[in-house]
């Protein structure tokens, strides 16, 4: 076993001063040297585009890679609800400390204090930056920025752009990147997929990329490599991730010695449109912001639930007293706005008790009737109508809801064919986000020198559960405000390093390795499609490493994945050739990596003998069915090494909490 030193490199000093003092004392790279330094950025979502643009502005030469046809299509585009910032514009008691504390607690005390505090500090600057770029955030009548609430917090700190916040923020970052491209500081390689990292003398010095249109392999060199390649939720096949989201860049880093941290920490989002059939290719999220106004419920009795499933009754016919608003009942302090992990498990519990309301038995209601009524009355009153009819109330109320969530309601109706203004929405949890990711230190550098990971691709800030509207915050904090500084700690030591040659032995060997991997899947010429393997892997992951897990299932799941991997290499069929645009080949290489990641997730979930955040082990529950954490034995980051002999080895980084007290997370 190799010795790997997981040094977090958190600077000394008071928590609130660490980042400021560190920035003021770190090594810099002078402008004349920046011009001579090349950086590769892989991925053009919020983290990648913001990092590339900012590094270009600073004067570095940046090469940017995306497998999409345009940087603007990265999956950050689909984020709906909003972005958090400790602006305290609402005067409701928010502060950097409170955002920090909420995030640490929301993550069930499994993240690094100093990283999270830095995130909370950067949050304020992000909003300013985005407004200046022209991001059209929601505004009040006075022209100032509006806010709303998200789960797991008791202040209104979420900035939003209707239900399309991710789109607007990404367009902002994409335009900043486009500007640097027009200045020649960023060179964008669209339709290029990174298939390996190249290390020279132990440092990350380049990548092997495949031109997806021609199949040609290209060797790209640089002084360092930044991965901003998103999360791995698609290991479950069905998730809210886009079809192309994959773990390959991160997994290639692991196969080059980087470590995968906390891979079992996956977020199951409570409000998604339920699965309806076997043909389904992906699941669609209904933003958490809906829980500001929607009330979650199931019928109190199994009989009513059964009648609904058999279409003998519809939801709105169930009288008020026969409904169980189970989140409000179980968690009165936070009600419908409990964090995602809690809301998801509660939905599963309700459905496991036979109270699900879809024909599959897997759905609960998210009901807007009360909000429509409340808003309708208020609206009528402010129009001077003090005695409105039921119909007037409904119509006015529906208009308010439409203004707030119109595009989400429309999306729901398009997918399900049901009108959510008239009938309560049906929702069920689905895989949405992965808190785990590449292990990075305070500089966002992996244990491979010169290899950095940003955004969802790293593990750094969300612990075992991410709070709503925090992913956009982290992606942009990493890209705009952290990496532009911390990358200097590495690059200041490289100012005498000349341009990296791309025809050295290391590059040729890496290219050869990629060629062999491609040949392996192309030449198998078996009988089963890539899609069918992916689907089977997803089923194993959901069954044994999904919303609840146990030791026996995890062991079984691991074996099943090992078998499936063997079958894949023996019987996969990839049509077409390598020398052309071939999406099936792209998918085959991604699924091959998922098949290794999936096993690592099983091993990680088995190692962690506790329930915390998104990781719920059936063996570890309190008497009232809540997650039971074990701080004594598991206050560490699990960082997994994958060896050349396909062995999975654990390395630990102990987490130290000097500023917050570890408490049982209660939302009651």
């Amino acid at each position, binding site marked *: 076993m190799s010795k790997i030193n997981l040094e977090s490199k958190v600077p000394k000093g008071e928590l609130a001063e660490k980042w400021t003092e560190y920035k003021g004392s770190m090594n810099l790279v002078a402008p004349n040297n920046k011009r001579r330094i090349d950086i590769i950025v892989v991925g053009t979502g919020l983290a990648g585009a913001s990092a590339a643009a900012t590094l270009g502005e600073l004067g570095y030469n940046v090469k940017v890679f995306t497998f999409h046809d345009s940087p603007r299509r990265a999956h950050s585009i689909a984020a709906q609800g909003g972005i958090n910032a400790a602006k305290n514009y609402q005067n409701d008691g928010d502060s950097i400390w409170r955002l920090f504390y909420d995030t640490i607690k929301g993550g069930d005390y499994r993240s690094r204090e100093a990283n999270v505090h830095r995130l909370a500090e950067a949050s304020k600057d992000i909003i300013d930056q985005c407004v200046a*770029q022209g991001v059209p955030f929601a505004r009040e009548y006075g022209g100032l920025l509006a806010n709303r609430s998200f789960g797991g917090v008791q202040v209104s700190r979420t900035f939003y752009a209707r239900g399309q916040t991710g789109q607007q923020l990404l367009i902002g970052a994409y335009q900043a990147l486009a500007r640097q491209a027009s200045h020649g500081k960023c060179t964008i390689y669209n339709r290029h997929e990174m298939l390996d990292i190249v290390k020279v003398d132990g440092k990350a010095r380049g990548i092997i990329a495949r031109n997806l249109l021609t199949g040609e392999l290209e060797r790209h060199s640089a002084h360092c490599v930044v991965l901003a390649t998103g999360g791995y939720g698609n290991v479950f096949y069905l998730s809210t991730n886009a079809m192309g989201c994959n773990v390959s860049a991160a997994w290639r880093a692991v196969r080059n010695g980087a470590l995968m941290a906390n891979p079992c920490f996956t977020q199951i989002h409570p409000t998604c449109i339920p699965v309806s*059939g076997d043909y389904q290719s992906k699941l669609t999220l209904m933003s958490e912001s809906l829980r500001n106004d929607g009330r979650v419920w199931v019928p109190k009795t199994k009989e009513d639930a059964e009648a609904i499933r058999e279409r003998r009754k519809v939801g709105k016919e169930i009288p008020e007293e026969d409904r169980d608003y189970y989140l409000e009942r179980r968690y009165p302090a936070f009600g419908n706005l409990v964090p995602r992990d809690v809301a998801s498990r509660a939905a599963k519990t309700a459905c496991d008790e036979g109270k699900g309301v879809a024909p599959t038995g897997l759905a609960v209601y998210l009901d807007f009737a009360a909000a429509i009524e409340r808003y309708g009355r208020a609206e009528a009153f402010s129009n001077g109508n003090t005695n409105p009819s039921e119909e007037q109330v409904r119509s006015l109320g529906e208009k308010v809801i439409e203004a707030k969530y119109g595009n989400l309601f*429309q999306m729901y109706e398009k*997918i399900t064919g049901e009108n959510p203004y008239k009938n309560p929405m049906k929702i069920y949890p689905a895989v949405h986000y992965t808190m785990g990711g590449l292990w990075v230190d305070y500089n966002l550098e992996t244990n491979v020198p010169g290899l950095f990971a940003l955004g969802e691709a790293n593990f750094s800030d969300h612990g075992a559960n991410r709070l709503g509207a925090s992913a956009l915050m982290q992606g942009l904090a990493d890209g705009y405000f952290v990496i532009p500084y911390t990358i200097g700690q590495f690059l200041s030591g490289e100012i005498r390093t000349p341009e990296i040659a791309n025809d050295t032995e290391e590059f040729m060997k890496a290219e050869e390795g990629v060629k062999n991997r491609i040949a392996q899947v192309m030449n198998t010429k078996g009988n089963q*499609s890539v899609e069918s393997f992916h689907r089977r892997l997803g089923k194993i992951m959901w069954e044994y490493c999904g919303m609840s897990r146990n030791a026996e299932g995890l062991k079984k799941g691991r074996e099943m994945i090992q078998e499936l991997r063997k079958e894949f290499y023996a019987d996969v069929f990839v049509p077409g050739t390598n020398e052309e645009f071939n999406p*099936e080949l792209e998918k085959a290489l991604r699924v091959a990596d998922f098949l290794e990641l999936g096993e690592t997730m099983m091993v990680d979930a088995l190692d962690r003998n506790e329930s915390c955040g998104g990781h719920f082990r059936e063996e570890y529950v309190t008497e009232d069915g809540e997650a039971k954490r074990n701080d004594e034995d598991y206050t560490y980051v699990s960082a997994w090494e994958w060896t050349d002999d396909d062995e999975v080895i654990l390395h630990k980084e102990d987490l130290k909490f000097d500023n917050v007290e570890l408490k049982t997370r209660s939302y009651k």
Partner: protein
Amino acid sequence: MNDMKLQLKIWRQRSADQKGHFETYTVQASEHMSFLEMLDVLNEELISKKEEPVVFEHDCREGICGACSMVINGRPHGPSKGTTACQLHMRSFKSGDTITIEPFRAKGFPVIKDLAVDRSAFDRIIQSGGYISVNTGQAPDGNSIPIEKDQAGKAFDAATCIGCGACVAACPNGSAMLFTSAKVSHLGLLPQGQIEHQNRVQSMVAQMDKEGFGMCSNTGACEVECPKEISIENIARLNRSYMASMFTSDK
């Protein structure tokens, strides 16, 4: 379950420099499927017969990434108003239908393979000036730039463009005016975007022409087919700005 039987006429083209043709397939589908899931079913069948699947672009499958780019029965993104191909569901069709599927066709969007086209011209139009020049760290406090709510709303409406290119595919001239004008409006309606407005209008229009997109002749097809229902008022606004910048700009 899969009780719909459909005939599909799909454009197959191996590469940009080879001739394409229509190929006919039959597929069993369910009305609950999305249009792209129906194509997934077809592709799985083709793969099981060791034939080559139909290449089409798609990613988010929730109507926001703008990747899908097909013409369904003569209309970009198909028959439903304000809907991308990925959000179109089979309940919009009936069993026995013949559905024709082809790529976006426009001079500015050369075909890559089957239903996939090259839309990188849109990136270059944005690179020519579709941004506000502000480096990271230069921004004042967000609330120091108040923006009237309706004005912000109008800018937002233009900013919802997903860059799919349906407007170009719908236009008899293959014009990219709706796309370009939406960006000019998004930025130009905001105080932050005012400073560079005139230059932006000039350089984006110049780039659009350079890419080989046609002229706008006010047919309005772009607005009808736009999955985000972006208004042609934006084109009128761009034309006004363009004229104004011709007369008043000293560059």
